């Protein structure tokens, strides 16, 4: 019955006249560009405040026009294309990055049905039964922009940046996709408008808090933002995948990064914070979820996420690459799989009328506590066995290493240290370094 009703909801999409569609498309584009300018300004002001500075405050009121001026300046700069670049791919890469960033917003619901030019239409460009999967698909195409930029630059730092980012984004996309599953199970749909509709009684941040935490972590990794900004780590890779880009092409990457930030925030709002629905005290007002007001609540929530992004950047140092990957694969993914298992069992028992929902939550938390305790006990035991192993290695190390034990060249046993190669040893003992070169220099000048 729910399915039938849900199918009915989607019929309101795809019937708009061409003019309304054009208005919506243009509206989304303008909103995204404005959001980008505003986000850059907000980032500089907020990070400035966090670092006891003021931030840009000269151009326009409160420095609001600063990012617009920076954008104009960037576009007018000289364009440098490296000699070793693969030209076609080099030009396509920023275009892919920027266009895919905009595409995602087509399925984000900004509000309920309103009237535009006398046409009653939802505040959303389109929607279909798998629109959240569509967002994942577009995101995976967006990675191409970054990878290809790194490859086509014909330079080693961008290549490393591109490789890093592809590894990072693929890994975190898995955790991201898994965090959606619990939402799908509860909303019984993959369409964004239906997920918002399903959150009318209760936002999913309350029901599915672990999914929300996993998603927010993954979304920071997915957008290459601090503390997960390894693909563009300035200290290690100069500028990451876009090192060789300048002028308008660089501006496109910049734009894509900020649009992506807005998009993942909008998705988080849609999936977990009730989309355009008004938060509690406002929702008591009976006009709160009608007409154009919801757009305000929606963008309020999106800006809350963007503030968290900026806050993270102002607070946390960058992770080490191996720690970052370990966290993604060994923590986020297994935890989300375990959580999906719990949610799926709970859903099944509820739909088959087996148990009360509240009892189930208690049971689930009890299971979780038991699992945590068991893993703690296992950790303690492993530590003990690690200590024994360390002692054994220390004992081994006391025996001197014989590189030709039994007449064959052999590697050192665990804990034993191999001697330095003979070449190195003679160099150090004969003291080629400082005194010798110095004396030779003097000889040279005498001649």
């Amino acid at each position, binding site marked *: 019955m729910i399915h039938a009703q849900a199918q009915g909801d989607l019929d309101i999409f795809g019937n708009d006249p061409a003019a309304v569609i054009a208005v919506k498309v243009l509206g989304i584009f303008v909103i995204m560009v404005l959001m980008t300018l505003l986000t850059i300004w907000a980032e500089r002001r907020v990070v400035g405040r966090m670092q006891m500075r003021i931030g840009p405050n000269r151009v326009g009121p409160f420095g609001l026009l600063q990012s617009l001026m920076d954008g104009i300046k960037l576009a007018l700069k000289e364009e440098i294309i490296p000699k070793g670049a693969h030209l076609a791919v080099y030009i396509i890469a920023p275009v892919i990055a920027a266009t895919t960033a905009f595409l995602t917003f087509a399925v984000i619901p900004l509000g309920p049905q309103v009237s535009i030019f006398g046409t009653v239409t939802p505040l959303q460009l389109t929607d279909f039964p798998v629109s959240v999967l569509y967002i994942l698909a577009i995101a995976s195409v967006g990675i191409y922009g970054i990878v290809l930029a*790194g*490859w086509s630059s014909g330079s080693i730092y961008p290549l490393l940046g591109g*490789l890093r980012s592809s590894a990072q984004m*693929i890994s975190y996309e898995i955790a991201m996709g898994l965090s959606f599953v619990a939402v799908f199970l509860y909303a019984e749909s993959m369409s964004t408008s239906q997920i918002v509709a399903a959150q009318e009684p209760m936002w999913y941040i309350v029901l599915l808090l672990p999914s929300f935490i996993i998603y927010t972590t993954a979304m920071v990794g997915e957008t290459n933002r601090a503390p997960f900004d390894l693909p563009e780590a300035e200290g290690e890779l100069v500028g990451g995948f876009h090192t060789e880009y300048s002028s308008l092409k660089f501006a496109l990457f910049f734009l894509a990064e900020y649009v992506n930030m807005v998009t993942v925030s909008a998705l988080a709002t849609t999936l977990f914070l009730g989309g355009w629905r008004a938060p509690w005290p406002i929702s008591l007002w009976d006009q709160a979820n009608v007409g154009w007001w919801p757009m305000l609540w929606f963008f309020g929530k999106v800006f809350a996420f963007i503030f968290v992004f900026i806050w993270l950047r102002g607070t946390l140092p960058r992770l080490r690459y191996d720690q970052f990957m370990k966290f993604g694969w060994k923590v986020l993914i297994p935890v989300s799989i375990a959580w999906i298992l719990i949610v799926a069992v709970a859903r099944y028992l509820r739909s088959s009328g087996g148990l009360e929902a509240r009892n189930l939550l208690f049971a689930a938390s009890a299971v979780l506590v038991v699992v945590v305790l068991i893993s703690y006990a296992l950790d303690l035991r492993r530590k003990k066995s690690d200590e024994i192993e360390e002692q054994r290695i220390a004992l081994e190390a006391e025996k001197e290493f014989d590189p030709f034990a039994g007449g064959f060249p052999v590697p050192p046993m665990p804990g034993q240290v191999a001697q330095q190669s003979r070449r*190195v040893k003679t*160099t150090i003992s004969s003291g080629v370094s400082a005194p010798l*070169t110095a004396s030779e220099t003097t000889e040279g000048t005498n001649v």
Partner: protein
Amino acid sequence: MNGESVVFWVSGAFAVAGALGMVVSKKAVHSALWVAFAMINIAVLYFALEAPFLGTTQIVVYTGAVMMLFLFVLMIVGVDSSDSLLETIKGQRLLASLFALTFGGVIVASISSTLASPSSGLAFANAGYGGHMQGIANLVFGTYLFAFEVLSALLITAALGAMVLAHNERWTPRKTQDQMQRERTLSNHVTPLPAPGVLARNNSVDTPALLPDGTTSIESLPNAFRGEGQVSKANSIEEAGK
């Protein structure tokens, strides 16, 4: 011509162009890109045929995962590696084209045989399930559950096999960041070692750095260059000039 046939002719042509581009391009990376392009266009065709789930899955799996993995490997293996056109196995091209033609014939024959009978249509396929998504879910997790599980077991086995092949036993326990920090503090060099090369004279890695007191530092060189006769003199270029 309605919208659907416009999409078919445009995307279909693009998909074929992508497939041809993949075969024709010499650079492996370009080939991979052409395949990704073809896959996206096939996904567009699925969308036009009212199969949005298949379309998105096509993009997520093929463009997003498989081709990205290919690109990843290509980028690691060699940035500029291009295919050699030399035939390494004797008669490979002949056999390959023979098999390709046979395969194409089988495909054309099987499709044309299904075209001969009237199609029952999307509405019939979705009837009783309440929609495209629910229909697929019912088939995968109902009728074909066993095949689905067998396939997943196969994939898991493959993943485990890859892990076993790539596994490397550690000889010694891994140094923690804390240990490395301690070792560095206790050594003579708390700061990084001096970089090789003398600015404005010779920046090659076999040139030891000049320290402030005028001596050279053997520690600035990579281990392989520390041997006798391999250390070039810091001032040799200056000497040559005199």
